[in-house]
């Protein structure tokens, strides 16, 4: 290769510096591994910073009845029982310790009257369970981890994009990428790599996700030969902003509903009553009066009766479908959403508990949420699917390749409960960091042939020589395709059409032309992001086609019911030659003592 590139060598390389990446790096470093953290943006700007509502953990600070068993059960039921039981178990058991640890590292959570960490209710959680800081919990988490990591001496390489994983035979040998600032190439050699790259939402046009969420880790793992599962399950958060156009899709935290927000359609109907699944009705208020009673108890800091929870606290998959249908059937708000109202609550309560929402709507939409209702609608938010990992260590099927957080699959099954993401990042970030450090400790330095590096470099530079179109045009068409064909409700015809369209988009993406130099060039970056997004989009569409039933976030109009046979399998995606292969694998068998938790409940 004509161009010289810099090389770094580490024991553990963590790719992505959100909650999972930071927690993994802290753990790997604490266990003695020479650790580097690589991120596409500046440190502290990762998507975790936008998580608002809280961290789910059965601390039982406000509802003493809570326990890991209940959290486990809520998580499994919320996930349509497709979650890997072991991940859900570890998550429920370890989340409280991870939250307390964060507090000891300096996080300042909102407090109970007796000075402990306050917890708020959230959809699908039986008890009030979310440790939080107003509605900026993610910022608190990122900043605490950032300070911890920086002072622990982890090498942080900011604004560096990893485009290829490098291998030594079957095992991971490192990663190739480039510095955004200079456009120059860099190679990281490592004994173990942790993918903590987050999600895939930028393949849809209405999304709460930032520019970084282009499915890099999903695509890198796939190309490296790892198996991905549950890719058909994409969470559309029920409440994104719908107006003005520039902020369409931006998240409106579930904490709004947890703090009393009521959903109404254009006719003023509180429609969520109509959409509660029959088998879950007993867990919600039967009337406005009961819901009001629950809220009054919650606001006053008393322990409310969980069977009087407002219907707005149904799980996200359900609330999103409800809003979508209300709008489709002509009962939507002026800008194509529904109304979310907290204006009947005391203004000081709203401003204290939902400060960012208050400012977001005031500054960006000219709406004072203490006086008038918000307009909201579903927005692409979270990928439940991801790299299949060993629950205890986070290692994928590729030796030395680990995954944690949103890029990993299995923890959330068919639908993630709100608040379970931040706890997931901490629990499995920590475990993957430990797993990677252990793997590195028993590995020798991998060897790496220059051929892989040279091929990666050639591929990266190709867009400068191409004569095709602008990458932004291809991205817009990709987003429209996924939004229209692979959204909340799916059909075989739509999914087939999407797969066909993706083929055309893939060909166009391979020919995109990039203007300008290699210095901090967003167009060049997008040219490569496109390939990741298209790969991931195809995984989602193919997996969605394979699952001929409706479960969790995956709703098939042509197969509207849950099917018991599909409930026993994960859909998995593997690489086969240059293409992808979709298959099914049996769910791991849950041990009897955990199964008993579900029988008790009945």
């Amino acid at each position, binding site marked *: 290769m004509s161009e010289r590139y810099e090389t770094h060598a580490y024991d553990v390389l963590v790719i992505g510096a959100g909650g999972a990446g930071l927690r993994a790096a802290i753990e790997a470093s604490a266990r003695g591994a020479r650790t580097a953290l690589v991120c596409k*943006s500046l440190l502290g700007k990762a998507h975790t910073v936008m998580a608002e509502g809280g961290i789910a953990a059965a601390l039982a600070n406000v509802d003493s009845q809570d326990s890991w068993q209940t959290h486990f059960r809520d998580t499994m039921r919320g996930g349509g029982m497709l979650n890997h039981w072991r991940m859900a178990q570890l998550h429920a058991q370890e989340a409280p310790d991870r939250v307390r640890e964060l507090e000891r590292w300096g996080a300042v959570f*909102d407090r109970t009257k007796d000075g402990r960490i306050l917890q708020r209710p959230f959809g699908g959680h039986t008890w009030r369970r979310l440790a939080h*800081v107003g509605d900026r919990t993610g910022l608190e988490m990122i900043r605490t981890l950032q300070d911890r990591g920086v002072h622990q001496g982890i090498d942080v390489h900011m604004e560096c994009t990893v485009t290829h994983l490098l291998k030594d035979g079957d095992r991971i040998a490192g990663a190739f990428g480039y510095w955004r*600032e200079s456009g120059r190439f860099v190679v990281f050699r490592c004994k173990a790599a942790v993918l903590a790259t987050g999600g895939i939402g930028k393949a849809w046009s209405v999304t709460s996700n930032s*520019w970084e969420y282009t499915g890099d880790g999903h695509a890198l793992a796939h190309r490296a030969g790892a198996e991905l599962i549950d890719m058909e399950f994409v969470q559309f958060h029920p409440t994104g902003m719908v107006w003005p156009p520039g902020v369409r899709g*931006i998240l409106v935290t579930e904490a709004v509903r947890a703090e009393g927000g009521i959903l109404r359609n254009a006719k003023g109907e509180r429609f969520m009553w109509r959409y509660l699944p029959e088998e879950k009705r007993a867990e919600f208020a039967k009337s406005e009066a009961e819901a009001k009673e629950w809220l009054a108890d919650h606001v006053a800091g008393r322990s409310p009766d969980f069977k009087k929870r407002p219907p707005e606290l149904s799980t996200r998959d359900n609330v999103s479908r409800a809003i979508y249908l209300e709008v489709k059937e002509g009962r939507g708000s002026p800008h194509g959403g529904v109304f979310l109202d907290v204006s009947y609550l005391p203004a000081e309560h709203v401003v204290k508990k939902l400060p*960012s929402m208050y400012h977001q709507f005031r500054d960006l939409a000219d709406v004072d949420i203490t006086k008038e209702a918000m307009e909201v609608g579903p927005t692409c938010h979270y990928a439940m699917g991801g790299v299949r990992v060993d629950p205890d260590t986070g290692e994928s099927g590729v030796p030395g390749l680990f995954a944690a957080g949103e890029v990993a699959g299995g923890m959330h099954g068919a639908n993630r409960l709100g608040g379970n993401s931040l706890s997931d990042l901490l629990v499995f970030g920590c475990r993957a960091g430990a797993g990677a450090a252990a793997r590195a400790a028993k590995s020798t330095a991998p060897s790496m042939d220059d051929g892989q590096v040279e091929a990666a470099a050639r591929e990266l530079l190709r867009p400068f020589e191409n004569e095709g179109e602008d990458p932004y045009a291809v991205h817009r068409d990709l987003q429209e395709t996924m939004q229209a064909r692979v959204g909340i409700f799916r059909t075989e015809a739509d999914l087939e059409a999407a797969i066909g369209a993706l083929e055309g988009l893939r060909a166009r993406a391979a020919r995109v032309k*990039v203007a300008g130099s290699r*210095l901090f060039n967003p167009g060049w970056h997008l040219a490569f992001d496109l390939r990741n997004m298209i790969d991931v989009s195809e995984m989602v569409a193919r997996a969605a086609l394979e699952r001929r039933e409706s479960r969790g976030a995956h709703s098939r109009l042509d197969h509207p019911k849950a099917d018991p046979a599909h409930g026993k399998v994960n859909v998995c995606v593997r690489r086969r030659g240059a293409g992808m292969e979709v298959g099914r694998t049996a769910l791991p068998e849950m041990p009897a003592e955990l199964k008993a938790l579900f029988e008790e409940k009945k």
Partner: protein
Amino acid sequence: MTAGEALFRVFRGDRDGGALTDYRVPVAPGMVVLDAVHWIQGHGAPDLAVRWNCKAAKCGSCSAEVNGKPRLMCKTRLDALPLDRPVEVRPMKSFPVVKDLVTDVSWNFEAAKRIPPFTPRAGAEWRYGQADADRAQEFRKCIECFLCQNVCHVIREHDRKDAFIGPAMFVRAAAFDMHPLDGLSRTAFLREKGGIGFCNITKCCTEVCPESIRITDNAIIPLKERVVDDFYDPLRWLWRKVAGKG
């Protein structure tokens, strides 16, 4: 109801210099400056460099100078700007330009590393009330947009990055120092390495903070008082000499 077009005059260039370039952008309701920059990228200037992430004033990435005023571009509405003249968008002035609207802010991260971290008191009981939390939480709202660093005259006019860590880092130090269970004194650091004495409380930092943190009143002045107490109070000065802590 498209209200027509706006003329944007955006800095294009790198370390070696550059110039303002004109772009005509269609105006949509509720549009912000960052929307316009994205529109320009997507329609003919794909290599226009800009940092952004959340687009909702939570991440602090898209700091720039709009019509000469340091702002988050995601929060700057076009309907609050005079569109009868060009909207000028330049990178933050106090940091070296990397390219276009992107500046080299690495100095801030280096400064952050030097601040003595949160260190809980030995045997601390992990209980404290909301009123105590409130005090630290104000500083923990900081989204690290560095607009306060950008406007602080010690940095902007005098470029004393060598001896001064700037308002954003005082906010960070205050977040640790005013944590109800912190047990470390940062006064020596603030005085000797942080250069807190350079600040003459002109409050420029407070004015530009998009999170409305009262930087001067609630972070810098109390920290200055702690420094004064520790270093200029004769009894404490004597105690330090006797105890060998200074």
